[in-house]
């Protein structure tokens, strides 16, 4: 789950990290009040969970409270990369002398936490470090050992900062580490982390991503868990599905990410176009299958539904029963192609046969049939 910049900065502040003075606002009037209170030139930043918002016009500056109100009016309700701006962050504009990049993130391949520091802070960081690998320093940290003070000295040296920054950088990485651990975060990123004109460090942007699997132990985030998704995606997530919206007309329902992607690949390979795909995950019972079938069949873009289930922890009889119940409930006339194999396969076949739903054994046949129906 991604946190908004203003939330990430509130957390950073709570952990003793320097961030610009500022507050979130939802109306131009609030923006005016905040700017008045700050009594300086302000940055007005759209609070959206998409990258490169600055390049998309999502960040403005204002010298007076009146100007802040005007910029806020322009930003609030506008679309940044397709996402509506509902909140803005109004904060003291920083006087920047140098920009750095600093983050902690989970590095899956080494099963460690990567501390990344760069002298090329800013939005183009990943492109820049590809061309200038020498501008990136990476320290891999054993998660059970954690960060150590020497790392702050390494970063200072790398950034070309003197001894008086050792303590400040230690404060940064120590707090970042504690945020990672306390919040079960998979990313804590300051980009840019700046050296201000008066020679101090300031986190001008902050990004925190909390691990979705850990939300149950963070009640404060749990209630906001689905906000970054579309309505349909959120509904699917609540049921424990992975759902992705695409452009075509074949609805795909599978169990397991790999099989779902493979089925989508096959549909495309045979000339069909998926409307969406939905992975019901492992061990889905009839109730969840029913909800999944309903979500897909009710979707206006879906002309044919292709169900491809290979039962392991998921049981074919439960899947068949869920399909039958969904069809009874919504009375859809859209064609449905079912391919069912694995655990309790015979039971599943019997249930489908009793309800006159054709069942396929071979994936190739099922995909070809679905593609054919999608073109009819």
């Amino acid at each position: 789950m991604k946190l908004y910049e203003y939330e990430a900065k509130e957390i950073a502040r709570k952990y003793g990290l320097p961030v610009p003075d500022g507050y979130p606002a939802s109306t131009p009037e609030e923006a005016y009040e905040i700017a008045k209170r700050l009594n300086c030139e302000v940055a007005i930043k759209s609070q959206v969970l998409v990258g490169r918002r600055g390049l998309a016009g999502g960040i403005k500056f204002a010298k007076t409270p009146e100007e802040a109100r005007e910029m806020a009016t322009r930003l609030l309700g506008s679309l940044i990369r397709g996402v509506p701006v509902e909140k803005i962050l109004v904060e003291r504009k920083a006087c920047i002398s140098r920009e750095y990049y600093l983050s902690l993130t989970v590095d899956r391949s080494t099963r460690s936490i990567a501390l990344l520091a760069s002298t090329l802070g800013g939005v183009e960081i990943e492109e820049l470090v590809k061309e200038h690998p020498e501008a990136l320093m990476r320290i891999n940290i054993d998660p059970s050992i954690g960060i150590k003070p020497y790392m702050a000295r390494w970063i200072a040296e790398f950034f070309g900062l003197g001894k008086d920054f050792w303590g400040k950088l230690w404060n940064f990485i120590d707090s970042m580490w504690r945020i990672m651990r306390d919040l079960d975060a998979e990313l804590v990123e300051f980009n840019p982390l700046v050296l201000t004109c008066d020679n101090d460090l300031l986190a001008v942007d902050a990004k925190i991503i909390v691990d979705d699997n850990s939300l149950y132990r963070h009640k404060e985030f749990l209630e906001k868990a689905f906000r970054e998704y579309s309505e349909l995606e959120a509904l699917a997530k609540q049921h424990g599905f992975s759902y992705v919206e695409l452009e075509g007309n074949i609805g795909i329902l599978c169990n397991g990410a790999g099989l779902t992607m493979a089925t989508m690949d096959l549909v495309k390979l045979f000339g069909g176009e998926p409307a969406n795909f939905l992975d019901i995950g492992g061990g889905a019972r009839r109730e969840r299958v029913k909800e999944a079938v309903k979500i897909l069949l009710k979707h206006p873009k879906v002309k044919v539904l292709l169900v491809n289930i290979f039962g392991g922890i998921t049981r074919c009889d439960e899947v068949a029963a869920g399909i039958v119940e969904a069809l009874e409930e919504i009375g859809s006339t859209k064609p449905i192609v079912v391919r069912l194999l694995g655990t309790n396969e015979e039971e599943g076949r019997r249930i489908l046969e009793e309800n006159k739903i054709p069942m396929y054994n071979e994936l190739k046949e099922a995909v070809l049939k679905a593609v054919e129906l999608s073109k009819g």
Partner: protein
Amino acid sequence: MAIIIDKNTRLLVQGITGKEGSFHTKLMLEYGTKVVAGVTPGKEGQQVHGVPVYNTIKKALKKHPEINTSIIFVPARFTMDAVYEAIDAGIEKIIVITEGVPLWDELMFVTHARRHGVVIVGPNTPGVISPGKAKVGIMPGHVFKEGSIGVVSRSGTLTYEISREIVRVGFGESTVIGIGGDPVTGLDFIDVYKMFLEDPETNAIVIIGEIGGDAEERLAHYIRKHGLEKPVIAYVAGMTAPPGKRMGHAGAIISMGMGDWASKKRAFEDVGVPVARTPWEIGELLRKYLVK
């Protein structure tokens, strides 16, 4: 021989009284796996399909010192504790079926296990099956057949699909192992690849990858360094997947352009590993490479 599990496997089921734990205990017993004991705190004295249940692994081991492998079905929030208990009790192979385990929990117990030389398969894995010998997992046993192809996968159900194709063209599997679908797993492709190389019963290796991460590229890199000692065939799901949502800049910096289908296909083909475009093409490629 097979890898990780074989006919000498003596299994403990952690979370045996739960819905999945008990159902799959029954299926594993039916397959012929020697399930000797189960653990669910507070349920000692019960039996699940004839398997005795204990409160602690310590007690289970005292009564059944032959236990050498554990399979974990406990809910995600108790998984870390269950893994630590198994490691502390001295169990050497732990198969973690549970999905949805918190990332930091995985990081902590996986690094702890590796430091202690304990093999962890998963989390979020279908498990391991050495057909005809033992099944420690949730996969449908009848799909697989004893043979000489080693299969390693990041996926669950797609593994069943491809294993079925392997059987259909007349081969069978030495061992099929799902390393798990989570960002952090106990074993990775390289670990399992090395095990298969050392297994005299494995003549060829099938790798089932997915887009995302760099596990496939790292295996290809390893093969480049050490040479291709047995025939390897790959399949990578997600050829037509839309580009995923970005995870901050750090994700992009770390992956450095790896992770998409084209990158993985190129990495494999560069080291002489053919990449099948459909699950059934794996069968055709195996025939081509193995039947002279």
